Each structure stands twice: as structure tokens, then as C-alpha cells.
């Protein structure tokens, strides 16, 4: 264990180019996935919270259930879509970082959408009278409520980001763990474990955990700062 942390430290200090590439790709893929998934998931979650339509309960149950979508299944679905023999085969996206962004977006979308629905739903209960008395339609209320819930929504985004950076099954299937192209932190850890190089694997794990900690700390800090400054 101590060996692992010592070598993690040595790896970080050495600024190894390959390691930096892997860390950079992990962050780029997962941040892009959070971005694209949220672009759709925030309005969808809010819409499900505010509008009543037939089958709404069903949609909520499905969204909640999909939070537990097994990454391997998501990976398999995207693999079959992107393979040359699949419907999106001609795009040639299999084994590229883009494929990894797609599969992670698929995993993140239900998490952000379901949590957004819950948050917006609660806010709507609170501000319903106020907003309707101001003459805001439900559609017009969506941006207001999303803005109002931004501090809670950051937690939803972090949950999505955590899911994306932590999973290995999906990106392994659609990315192929190609050195220098689609190798991210988790697939590198899996590879080193398979080589029996447990110390290096654990060292990479320690670096991944540290990164996650830093990003969460950063988000928390920004949230606290703005809360104090602008009120929540």
C-alpha cells in the first residue's frame, strides 16, 4: 500500500508525459460527456417535473431506473451502433474518444435528468404561487427554476461526472483501451492489474481519486463562494 502511494507521488512529480496524456483524456472525455448529457438532461428533467402528460409516472420510473444502467450494457449498445456493421458504422467512430463521450453521456443522462426532476419539482412546490402570480407560464418557469436550483444542480452534475470517471466497462468496449488514443485512467488501471503490476495500478487509482477529490473540492468551493456572495 505504502509503495503504491510512494510511486503515485513519484509519478505525479515526474510529470510523465504518458500519464499526463491519460489523465487529460479522462478529464476531457468525462467533462465533455457531462456537458452534452446535461445540455439535454437539465431541460428534460425540468420539463418532466413541471408538465403533466400521459405516461409521466412511467417516464419518472424509467429515468430513475436508468440511473442504474449497467455500464457494460451501455457499452454493448453503443458498440453495436458504432460498429462497421451497425447503423452508424459508416461514421467510423468506434475506438475513438468520441465513442467514449457518447457512451458516458448515455450513462450520465438519466442521473442528471432524474436528479434535476427532483430538485425542480421541489422548487416548483415552493415558488409555484409566486411564479404563477407573476404570470409566468410553466415553460417560462423552467429557466428560472434551473437558475434558482443551480447550487443543488451542481451536485447532480458532480454525481454524473463521478459516474463517468469511475466506470471502466463501457469505455473499454467502445474505446478499446488503445495506448495514446483511447486509454483513460480506469482502463489503464485495469490493464496494469492484468499485468499483475498491482503497485502501479493502485498508484494510478490514487491519482484518479485525488483528481476526483480536487474537482469536487473546487465545485464545492465555487458553490459556497457564490452562495455567500449572491445568496441562494
Amino acid at each position, binding site marked *: 500500500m505504502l509503495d503504491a502511494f510512494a510511486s503515485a507521488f513519484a509519478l505525479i512529480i515526474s510529470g510523465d508525459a504518458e500519464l499526463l496524456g491519460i489523465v487529460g483524456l479522462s478529464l476531457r472525455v468525462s467533462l465533455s460527456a457531462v456537458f452534452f448529457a446535461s445540455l439535454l438532461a437539465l431541460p428534460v428533467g425540468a420539463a418532466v417535473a413541471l408538465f403533466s402528460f400521459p405516461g409521466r409516472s412511467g417516464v419518472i420510473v424509467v429515468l430513475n431506473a436508468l440511473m442504474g444502467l449497467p455500464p457494460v450494457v451501455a457499452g454493448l449498445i453503443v458498440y453495436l451502433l458504432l460498429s462497421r456493421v451497425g447503423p452508424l458504422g459508416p461514421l467510423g467512430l468506434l475506438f475513438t474518444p468520441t465513442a467514449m463521450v457518447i457512451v458516458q453521456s448515455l450513462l450520465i443522462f438519466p442521473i442528471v435528468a432524474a436528479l434535476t426532476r427532483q430538485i425542480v419539482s421541489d422548487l416548483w412546490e415552493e415558488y409555484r404561487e409566486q411564479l404563477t402570480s407573476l404570470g409566468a407560464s410553466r415553460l417560462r418557469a423552467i429557466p428560472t427554476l434551473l437558475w434558482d436550483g443551480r447550487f443543488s444542480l451542481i451536485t447532480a452534475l458532480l454525481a454524473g461526472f463521478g459516474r463517468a470517471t469511475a466506470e471502466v466497462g463501457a469505455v473499454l468496449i467502445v474505446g478499446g483501451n488503445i*495506448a495514446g488514443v483511447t486509454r483513460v485512467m480506469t482502463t489503464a488501471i485495469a490493464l496494469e492489474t492484468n499485468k499483475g503490476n498491482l503497485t502501479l495500478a493502485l498508484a494510478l487509482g490514487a491519482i484518479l481519486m485525488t483528481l476526483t477529490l480536487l474537482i469536487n473540492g473546487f465545485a464545492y468551493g465555487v458553490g459556497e463562494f457564490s452562495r455567500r456572495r449572491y445568496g441562494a
Partner: protein
Amino acid sequence: MIRTIIRFSTALLIALSLSLSVNAQERGFITIASTTSTENSGLFEDILPQFTESTGIEVRVVAVGTGQALRIGCNGDADAVLVHAPAAERQFIADGCGVDRREIMYNDFIVIGPGSDPAGIEGTETAAEAFQIIADAEAPFASRGDDSGTHKKEMSIWADAGIEPAGSWYRELGSGMGAALNTAAGMDAYIMADRGTWISFDNRQNLEILVEGDPNLFNQYGSVLVNPANHDVKHELAQEWHDWLVSEEGQAAIGAYRLRGQQLFTPNAN
């Protein structure tokens, strides 16, 4: 303050996207599907830069079991395959999935087990004999169980021994060579592995080589091009890779690769 944070985050994001641009070679890249043994042993890390140096073609390797590598090739998701199951490779060509199979290199399989050797297989001449003893003793045996080249070979040895392995002692893992070795080490089981992965494997615990040198444990690697008639693959670039592997330069590069003082693969293109 808020502005500083926003500026800082933006700068960070831009730096991130820049740091990621893949350095594409001037002539583009090919994707090959290969086995975990070639990847885990570090062979590719050693020879690919030499190939890229002399041709300007980048090679991207997806390392999976032989069975899956052949499927990836058949679907056109790779431009060539480098695997180790001659019978399956010939079938791959017969099925119209691939063209032009060439033998590249070989090493051998070994039977590994705990140093205490509870079934007593050490000193047996052939793998089939050793398997027979393991089955009789019902000693724990870890099988890859993943349709890889090593798994196919293991099954053929069970067939030679006239045994259909089953029972709680026979554990099908469904994982790659390295992961299977980790598991075998954890449960003190017998296992068959390729020598390349074994030499590069660190987490051996009690495991040691017990049976080796049986001619039946010969492990031939072959390269096959994906049939360009089926898919829009990069046939010309893949052909150069294929030719390089059997060229004097490529063969020398394979033969020169050493790990821990041992040669892992012996080139044998003809």
C-alpha cells in the same frame, strides 16, 4: 474573484483540449485487433514505434481475446488482426472475413501451478498427461473460458487427454490472461498461460512453471488482413504493416524484444 475563477476554469478547459490532440502521423493510422498476450507482454510498445518510424503509419491496437479479435476484424472494425489460433485464423479466411494469412512468430504455452504442486504434475512430459493428473486429483484449475487463443489451445489439450473438464475444481473465469493469472494466484489453482504474459506478470505469489517443452504447447502467432471486399478498411496501409511484420526489419525487431533478460517471441516468417 468570480471572474478569476471563470477565467481560470476556461484556461484549464482549453489547456485540456489542447493537451489531448492526438499526434496523428502524416500518413494516417490503422487499427489492428490483437490479443492480450501481445499487449500485456509489452511487445507492441517496443516494435510499433519502429514501424511508425520507417513508414509514417500509426498503429492503434485493440487488445482482446483471439475470438473477439477475429469478430472485430470480421465486422470491419479493424484493418488487420494479429492473433494466435491457426485453425480459427484459417476459418476466418474460409468465412470470407480475412485474406492473406502469414505466420509471424511463436513462443510456447506453459502449465503453471502452485509451487507445492498438490496434484503432482511436475516432471510430466506432456501437457495432456499433466491435465489428466489434475483432473484425477480434482485440483483447482483456472480456465480462461473466453474463447481466446489460449482457451482454444487448453480445450484441445483436454480433448487430447480424453477429458471433458467439469466440476467444482474446474473454474471457467471468462477473463484475459493477466486477470486469469491474478485469479489463479489468489486461489492456488493450476492454469495454462502463454510464456510472454507469464514473463511480464508480476503478481505471481506461489505460482511457478511446472510443465513446459511439450511440442504440443507450441504457440504460433499469425497476421491476417481484413477482407477489403467486405468493408471500407484501410487495406493498403494494413498491407504495409503486414509486409513489415514478415520483413527482415520487422522480424529482427520482434526477435530483439527482451523482457527481464528473456526473449519473448521468436520470429518465424517464411
